[in-house]
């Protein structure tokens, strides 16, 4: 007997009988409340929307204050210095990455249905979206004050912000127990570096280097999700230690 015949015969012998009384069985368990015993739970979107309310007020206050400050600085003296203020916006994002660990909530959040990953991603999403939208608005508002094109103002604003966010996310992945001071220092150093850069690179804000800014923007914008993904993938060990 070849294997194909054997398989056919085994299949015929092991044929499951037709279900009898299936409908009656389901009616009975439904009547007894045994189906869907677990309470209804919220969807991923409802959860993510709810996390907006749990972002600390100072994060929003800092974002609003910085966006107003950048707008005012650009209008008053439309030079390159105001662009160096955007790294401070990253402090709000970075504060969210280590918050659960700092306040020892990580373990409980990890064991809950939506888990720590969802909590962190939802918060990062909200702060990131609000900051980026705010910066876009500022770019549109201050663009007439500059002789640069819209795309150049956008790049000069976004690159320092994303640089600080990317460096800070790498730092937060490795160091979590310093109450975020390391990330604040990274924002400060990024700001200082971009403020001092024209003194060392004279043509940094010239049109011919727009390609360099665009390359930096793509690198940072592409690197930041990767860095967050690496960090999320290694979420197990942080909880332990």
């Amino acid at each position: 007997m070849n294997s194909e015949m054997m398989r056919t015969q085994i299949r015929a012998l092991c044929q499951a009988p037709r279900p009898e009384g299936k409908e009656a069985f389901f009616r009975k368990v439904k009547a007894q409340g045994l189906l869907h015993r677990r309470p209804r739970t919220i969807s991923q979107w409802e959860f993510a929307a709810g996390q907006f309310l749990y972002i600390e007020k100072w994060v929003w206050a800092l974002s609003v204050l910085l966006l107003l400050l950048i707008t005012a600085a650009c209008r008053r003296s439309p030079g390159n210095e105001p662009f160096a203020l955007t790294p401070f916006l990253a402090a709000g994002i970075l504060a969210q990455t280590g918050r659960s660990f700092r306040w020892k909530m990580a373990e409980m959040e990890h064991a809950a249905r939506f888990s720590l990953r969802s909590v962190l991603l939802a918060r990062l999403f909200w702060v990131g979206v609000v900051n980026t939208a705010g910066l876009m608005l500022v770019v549109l508002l201050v663009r007439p004050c500059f002789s640069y094109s819209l795309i150049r103002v956008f790049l000069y604003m976004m690159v320092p912000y994303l640089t600080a966010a990317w460096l800070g996310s790498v730092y937060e992945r490795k160091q979590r127990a310093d109450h975020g001071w390391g990330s604040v220092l990274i924002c400060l150093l990024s700001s200082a570096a971009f403020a001092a850069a024209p003194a060392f690179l004279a043509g940094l804000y010239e049109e011919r280097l727009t390609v360099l800014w665009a390359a930096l923007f793509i690198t940072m914008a592409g690197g930041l999700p990767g860095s967050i993904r690496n960090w999320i993938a290694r979420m197990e060990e942080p909880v332990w230690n």
Partner: protein
Amino acid sequence: MELTADRISKQYKNKIAVDRLSFTLTEGVTGLLGSNGAGKTTLMRLLCGILVPTSGSVACGGMDVCTEEYRDILGYLPQEFGYYPEFTGRDFLLYMSAVKGLPRRDALRRTEELIELVGLKPVARKKVRTYSGGMKQRLGIAQALLNDPQVLIMDEPTAGLDPQERIRFRELIAGLGKNRIVLLSTHIVSDLEHIADQLMIMKEGRLVWQGKWHAGKEDLEAFYISKIQDER
């Protein structure tokens, strides 16, 4: 429902925290005893899916413990936990309800019920930072019960509770253990004496004894010490 661990181990660099444990937990209260550093907390984290075992597997009712479905039926009280500084006791429970996926209306109802149950009603709207150690522990117990868990894992739940609170807690756990899997770790033997249906004794990452416990048949403390010493 059964929670089954199949030859699970957890190794940290040169230390084996949990060494090839296999067991099945069924409905009822299981007490996990062991001295400090025996591997109780690591085992509990493995059972909650917080840690991934170096080898072996943990499953509950056919679900892997890393899945959302399992976490949906899990209640966990860690040994050490904190709270966001702006939270009141009520905020804390509402927040944990959201992370556990409870709809707002259910979250409000469960929060009120549990605040009442753990005796925190008079201080529910006060900041958690003003709570005593025992109050924080009761809040932790309440959050573990928010989603009406089928699997309840509590690491040193009676730490910081005064004698009266401990008696109340024991009664609560005995009631909960009737129709769900409850695993408690402690090194206070008397906490388990009258409520544990099963016992597991750990030493240096290994299970040195596991079996049914019949309250009143023997002195648990003497039994525990004899089992720990047998292993020397």
